[in-house]
């Protein structure tokens, strides 16, 4: 179970990346499946070649940034549909990943990685490693929340919320999307690099279906905690990632076949997407919202025409 906590917190890095593309930019970015592996492959190949593991990890962030920019360029400059742009980059990355690694699997077991100190002290999978990864996730979340509260971050949020409006205020929304997708995939690649070092190998198939895990984290977390502010929304993503890993771990413990995990992931996401639309849940939520409004809003006009839109999101 502790390993699930470890993994949940490391995968939270990827989930934060998915949060940027999926929620902030309103862009379902399928590049993730490819860029995650690219991050892992880059780090593994560099470490095996004798590069310092910290540098190798940093390099995968750079590669992730590039991968995201390519999807961004295809969409923003080439006018290609977001899903298709992501798929194209993802498929292209498959070949690139094989080129980077030279083969389908690169083991890192005897190599020196950034997690070696903890591995040698037998601290991985203990409360100590959980605390370390938790600290890392908190720092990243704080950085992201800060970034989104700056002038630049506000423009990025508005790009996903009302593109025509923020363009009319002088923001180059194409550049904003490219930047956001780069950032998102940089985080995803960083996560890939960490996972490769955690499990001790990079594999060509390790990214398959990962976007679903990312979406599951975002959707589950935000279904529970909501997204009233960016801080709540981003924190919810981290918790969502941990919950997702725990559920998967639980499913394995009760005897589900590991091969069924992708199916279980998909079903989880579907449930998390459908549940909020269910009448009972909606009514409870509306009541909660009403109470919050009474607390926070001293003045309300008699006709409120647009509240329905808020509830739907």
């Amino acid at each position: 179970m502790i390993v699930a906590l470890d993994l949940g917190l490391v995968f939270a890095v990827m989930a934060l990346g998915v949060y940027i593309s999926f929620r902030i930019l309103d862009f379902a970015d399928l590049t993730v499946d490819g860029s995650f592996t690219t991050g892992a492959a880059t780090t593994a190949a560099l470490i095996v070649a004798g590069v310092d593991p910290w540098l190798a990890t940093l390099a995968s962030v750079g590669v992730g940034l590039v991968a995201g920019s390519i999807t961004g360029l295809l969409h923003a400059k080439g006018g290609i549909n977001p899903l298709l742009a992501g798929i194209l980059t993802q498929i292209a990355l498959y070949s690139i990943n094989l080129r980077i690694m030279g083969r389908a699997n690169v083991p890192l077991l005897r190599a020196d990685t950034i997690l070696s100190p903890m591995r040698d002290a037998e601290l991985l999978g203990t409360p100590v490693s959980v605390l370390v990864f938790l600290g890392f996730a908190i720092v990243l979340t704080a950085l992201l929340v800060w970034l989104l509260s700056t002038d630049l971050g506000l423009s990025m949020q508005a790009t996903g919320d009302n593109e025509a409006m923020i363009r009319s205020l002088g923001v180059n929304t194409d550049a904003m999307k490219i930047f956001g997708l780069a950032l998102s995939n940089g985080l995803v690649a960083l996560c890939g690099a960490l996972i490769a070092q955690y499990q001790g190998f990079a594999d060509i198939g390790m990214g398959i279906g990962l976007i679903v895990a990312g979406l599951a984290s975002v959707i589950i977390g935000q279904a529970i905690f909501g997204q009233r502010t960016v801080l709540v929304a981003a924190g919810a993503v981290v918790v969502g990632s941990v919950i997702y890993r725990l559920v998967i771990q639980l499913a394995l413990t009760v005897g589900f076949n590991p091969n069924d995990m992708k199916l279980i992931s998909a079903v989880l996401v579907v449930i998390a997407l459908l549940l909020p639309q269910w009448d009972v849940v909606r009514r409870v939520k509306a009541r909660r919202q009403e109470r919050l409004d009474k607390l926070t809003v001293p003045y309300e006009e008699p006709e409120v025409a647009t509240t329905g839109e808020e509830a739907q999101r």
Partner: protein
Amino acid sequence: MTQPKLELSNITKIFYPHTVNERIALKSFSLTLHEGDFVTIIGSNGAGKSTLLNVISGVYRPEAGTMRLDDRDVTRLTDYQRARYISRVFQDPMAGTAPHMTIEQNLAMALARGLRRGLRRGVSRAKRERFREELSALELGLEDRLGVRVGMLSGGQRQALSLLMATFSKPEILLLDEHTAALDPQRAALVTRLTAEEVSRHGLTALMVTHNMEQALQLGNRLIMMHEGEIIFEIDAEAKAAATVPDLLAEFGKVRGAAEALSDRTLLG
């Protein structure tokens, strides 16, 4: 008079050129605005009024003609580059604000119109004070709700907020695209009053498209009537002060086809 603020010369905008659906929306259109001019534009549907605003704001690129702003040629600038000088209020109250962001965040984005957006705090304490002041001028009680998401506001409140966002950063040119058309009469009157106040408070140069002739006469110092991409009638401040809705209708009547194109709403408006 001093040099013109905004100068459109021979602007031609064609939709679907070289196809059977080809339509000339603006026909060699020229218009000059001086500092402080507030021009209202009326015309039947399809007269090219909205196209004109979209060309000025840079959303549409004209096939021919030039546009100068304060003696700079801005014809080749994109919409987001022109945003530094030109601000806009849309017809749809939902279009001018970001619904999932708070009132203060929306205002902060508007305050940074056309500026470099860096890593400074979007909503600082000083800015928040300023927003509170600006909002209290609207007298809608919004100054106490800075942290509320804009999606929670009514259409009238959102449009008033859009108007404030478009004006308080003092743009060179303000474009109003039927910005009261989607509101009920009471809210429309409110936004119309706010428009007049904000424009005179900041001494803005403005262009307003409207279907409401009374509003067209009530606001601004010049009025132009458009039909099929051309100006067919124009009056200045003096004549405008004396003009009435029947006068305008009579002018419409002179254009064959235009009178039939007027909707009931316009006549009642």
